[in-house]
């Protein structure tokens, strides 16, 4: 499928963070380049436009067939891809906070690192980060007790603290929010009620804290297991709720028993 491409090239690095929630395929779809240039951005307390900070070229189509390519150092640009429902965004550098938050469809690729809150409140779609991500990847925003509810986040590098906070799955709706990452900081899967997490490498402490149900797989080492997790039988294979099968020898733990005496929550740590 050949998508229409809109190219954004950053003209000058913003002095303060730039809030770019208007940069989504949904907002660009069906608009001319001039209309896109006039879309609003916030630079500290100044209301500016996309045209003020970016050179805009290319063409937009409908949402599903619009691909936005962003060049230049946007490490200080926040909220790119917010609430998008389709289409694609490719970011060729590090990106600021809140990338892809609340998206429900489409795909975002970050060819660099992402700041905190990447993929927060994800409702669907795919977010891929080639570098490291900050804290709160795929997490719920402050005060929400349901965070990521569907979709996939892939981070090649590390994710920060409290990633997948309050993640919630739904068996009847076949929604299995999933995070794949290279390594994880502390509190991965905090308050988890159904999310799936697979860590290729090591994870820090308090993994699965307050998990009521869900599946967390650590293929490397964990720095300290929570005392409220209890050892069950070892396994040679794990079937993730989304159907994927992981083979290898793993120690199996149930938890978090600080929530309840019996629990469907599971944590798997590779046996080397």
């Amino acid at each position, binding site marked *: 499928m050949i998508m229409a491409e809109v190219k954004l090239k950053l003209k000058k690095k913003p002095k303060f963070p730039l809030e770019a929630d208007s940069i989504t395929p949904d907002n660009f779809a069906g608009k001319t380049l001039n209309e896109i240039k006039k879309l609003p951005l916030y630079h500290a*307390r100044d209301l500016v436009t996309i045209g003020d900070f970016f050179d805009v070229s290319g063409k937009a189509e409908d949402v599903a067939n619009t691909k936005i390519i962003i060049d230049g150092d946007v490490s200080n640009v926040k909220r790119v891809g917010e609430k998008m429902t389709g289409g694609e965004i490719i970011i060729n550098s590090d990106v600021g906070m809140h990338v892809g938050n609340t998206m429900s469809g489409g795909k975002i690729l970050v060819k660099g690192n992402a700041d905190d809150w990447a993929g927060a409140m994800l409702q669907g779609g795919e977010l891929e980060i080639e570098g490291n991500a900050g804290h709160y990847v795929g997490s719920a925003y*402050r*005060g929400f007790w349901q965070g990521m509810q569907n979709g996939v986040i892939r981070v090649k590098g590390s994710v920060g603290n409290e990633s997948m906070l309050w993640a919630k799955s739904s068996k009847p709706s076949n929604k299995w929010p999933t995070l794949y990452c290279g390594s994880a900081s502390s509190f991965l899967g905090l308050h988890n009620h159904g999310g799936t997490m697979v860590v290729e490498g090591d994870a820090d*402490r308090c993994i699965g*804290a307050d998990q009521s149900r869900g599946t967390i797989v650590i293929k490397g080492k964990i720095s300290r297991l929570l*005392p409220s997790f*209890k050892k069950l039988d070892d396994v040679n294979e794990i079937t993730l709720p989304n159907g994927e099968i992981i083979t290898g020898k793993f120690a199996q733990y149930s938890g978090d028993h*600080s929530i309840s*005496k019996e629990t469907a929550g599971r944590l798997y740590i590779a046996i080397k």
Partner: protein
Amino acid sequence: MSQKKIITHHDVLCPFCGTLCDDLEVDVADNEVVEMRNSCQIGTKKFFSSNPSGHRYLKPQIKEKGSFRDATWDEALDKAADILLKAKRPLLYGFSSTECEAQNVGVELAEYLRAILDNTASVCHGPSLLAIQDVGAPLSTLGEYKNRADLVIFWGSNPVHAHPRHLSRYSDYVRGYFRKDGRNDRFIVVVDPRKTHTAQIADLYIQVKPNEDYELLNAIRAVLRGVELDAKEVSGVPMEEIKKLVEILKKCHFGVIFFGMGLTQSVSHHRNVDTAICLTRELNDHTKFLLTPMRGHYNVAGANQVFTWTTGYAYSIDFSRGYGRYNPGEFSSVDLLMKDEVDATLIVASDPASNFPAGAVRNMFKHPIIAIEPHHTPTSVYADVILPPAFAGIECEGTAYRMDKVPLRLRKVKEAPEECLPDREILERLLEKVKEKEGK
């Protein structure tokens, strides 16, 4: 020698810590505090510090060529308004050591300027508020604890040093309605990495390893659920001690956990509080159990109240897009300063130069600072404009909220120096000046 006429004020509130003692007696003669009764060392010092001294600012100050000169209020407010209007991302910070009406004007000013608005909870009990937003909290008032609690736990809190009269008025020595035998009717537990002075007068001291409070609370919760754990020891505490503690928790009639910076300022901050709250709630399956954060400043709880009524949020609020948005970590003062994202600060009733990490102070100093501050402090000394206030609770009235969110009325026991204005008046005049300059 002439007899000075002494006026004694009774039931005066102490404007220092979150215990907000309401039984102080202050003797004033010739508009100077001459004697205090019932106050702790720190409260006494605070009242006496309002007397004339070389440390107090008596007139507005403007810095010119590296040193301060006296200025009129008009001049100083004008300069301050210029600084705030020129900035793109100004920060209004502090508010914890002043009264509620002033805090209210602060919100209005921040909203008008589309600035960042924050208070000292940001570096103190902000994590407690974050935890309460996630899991709620079973709270009560100090009077209830005084009258009913037979089990009192201080977790990461050292009231002998930080809240000196808390123990004698509410939590340890005081006789209560159902605790008529005072200290003998209570069992005190202290959890801390050091055997603090508070731990030394407790019935049970549990030494927890620094940064491992979460794991210990987590283990206690699981044992409380009747789960037999695999570990023999958690956070430096043997499993036998943990099991004994759980029995003590279950068997009390009315328990309370008072917690402090040991939880909020260690690694995992708000999650330490989150799990402590969950433990407290779960204990109510067995007995009556509540918790209360030991708020540091006498009116930081008030700042959280006022900010919340008016904006919906308690601290770390960004108005840059024309409405309030809340996200500690993104809009919190230290984070913003560490990234050098703020280009001017208005500091009210606080001293960030002393209390923020060095990196944040370094960046704060790169930009103009307006300080509403009665005394020489590291913040005021390096400010560009100083607006001298009257002491709330000594030289002007107002409302303050205690650590348990009970509102009490601050008293006025003496007059402020002629050119020192109440905080709320300074902020009102500043707001007026700012509006005037924008032709509104």
